[in-house]
């Protein structure tokens, strides 16, 4: 069987990349909601 399981480096790269993307989303939408609330 041809295989290429996710190894620890791969998991690390995936976790860091997903982490950066999720952090950016959470940060920007938190800021938007915070500013909307402040402006009200």
């Amino acid at each position, binding site marked *: 069987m041809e295989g290429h399981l996710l190894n620890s480096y791969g998991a690390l790269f*995936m976790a860091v990349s997903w982490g950066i993307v999720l952090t950016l989303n959470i940060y920007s939408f938190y800021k938007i909601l915070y500013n*909307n609330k402040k402006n009200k």
Partner: protein
Amino acid sequence: MVHKREQWGTRIGLILAVAGNAIGLGNFLRFPVQAADNGGGAFMIPYMISFILLGIPLIWVEWALGRYGGERGHGTAVAVFDLIWRHPLAKYIGIFGVLIPLVVVVYYTYIESWTLIYSFFHLINEVPSTPLTADIKDYLKPFNDFLGGIIGASSGSDIFFTPPLETYLFFLVTLLLNLYIIYRGVSAGIEKVAKFAMPLIFIMAIILVIRVFTLTSPDGRNFLDGLGFLWNPDFSALKDPKVWLAAAGQIFFTLSIGFGAILTYASYLKPKSDVALNGLASASVNEFAEVILGGSIAITASVIFFGIAGTQYIASEGAFNLGFMALPAIFANIPYGAFFGFLWFLLLFFAGITSSIALMQPAMAFLEDEFGLSRDRAVKYLGAFLFVSSHIPIFLKGALDELDFWVGTFALVIFALFEVITFVWILGIPQLSEKLQEKSLLSKIFIVLKHSPEYAWKELNRYADIKIPRIFYYILSYIAPLFLIVILLWWFVTTLPAKFIPEHINGWIARLFILFVFILGVVLVKKSWERKYGRTSS
């Protein structure tokens, strides 16, 4: 003539619309192929670096230029460049910000209509069904023939496609749907569609990710093999400049930088609006769709079913083959496959339409802002142009690739460079006039390079809801333009020489079409300026 410009209804609607512009077929089809071809997980190092050094700064530039134009009653680079440069030639350079999206949408709408056809055929379960056999070429043949049948590639002619009537009808439906949304306007059309389509895209993508992650092949491969193929790093790839350029290119295309569409969308901002946080939020949503969702569907499913060698073979034949051949082939062999196929292509259709309406809007803004046309008249002119022009990629073999290379790839990097130069180095020149008096040319250039970015930085931070780290001042002013120049030089050396002579007569026809559109654009800009300011201004 001054006319009342439209505005976005809500901030979230605006962000979803800009993210919808960026989230397109490339997020789900191009990104995983690029990542897997360029070192897997190691590709993500240059990709993330490019996102920070090129993607975010250039997105801010387009947002800021758009707000600058919108505040002065203009929504395209034509007028924005004219306002900033104060030179007769500037508006003719700015016309790229209208013509690039206009030419791209000529073929993009046609590809978008394929996703609607595929979605429909999956819904009525009229797609090929073949048992999984050992030889991948034999297995994929019915799916290859199916795609060939839809686009009319199997006619035997070297020059013409002969698509069947249903392909043409689906294209007309897609085009009319796009035009109707544009006709409804920015808030009642584009924003409404974005608010409806974007959550659906994410829901459909998450359902598909869950389905892919629960797949296993008859010989035992599962999603960890797919993720391993995409994410396990090959560090030797980092030494290859091609990998770095592929990553920079992917960031460029995925964020829709250099099309002029973000500039137009940002021109409809309400007064005193932020661009820093809006730009960052829309880029972040796009990256979520690309890195997390786009990276987990097509290539993962393909590795599970066809293995690594099979996936590499499919991907090497083109990014579309993964989405239009490999995935339907996989769906044909799983329970409720027709339903998942329907979801996959509907997802691509929604991703496509939120991008194509964005690509049409600069031309609309140009006709409305610079000619004072009503929206319905502007839609009629745009619709007539798109209907006639679309016959080139529909019927002429090779024309789509030619248009995509010269306009959808090459021209946007050049235009992005003009955008960044305009914003960073030219915007501040009027304020430097005293410092520039009686100086030599070299001294003037030095003063502009040193002081002008400060005015761009102020413009970007005006009404900002976040404090942009100061490091981005240097990235925006020097690193991003340099990065773009390196990409262009690399393409000049490696790619352009092979593209000078087209392989086919249709390549020349496509080039003549580009030339015709450019001349038409120049004439329209000239007429518009003569109409507004008299003959001397052009």
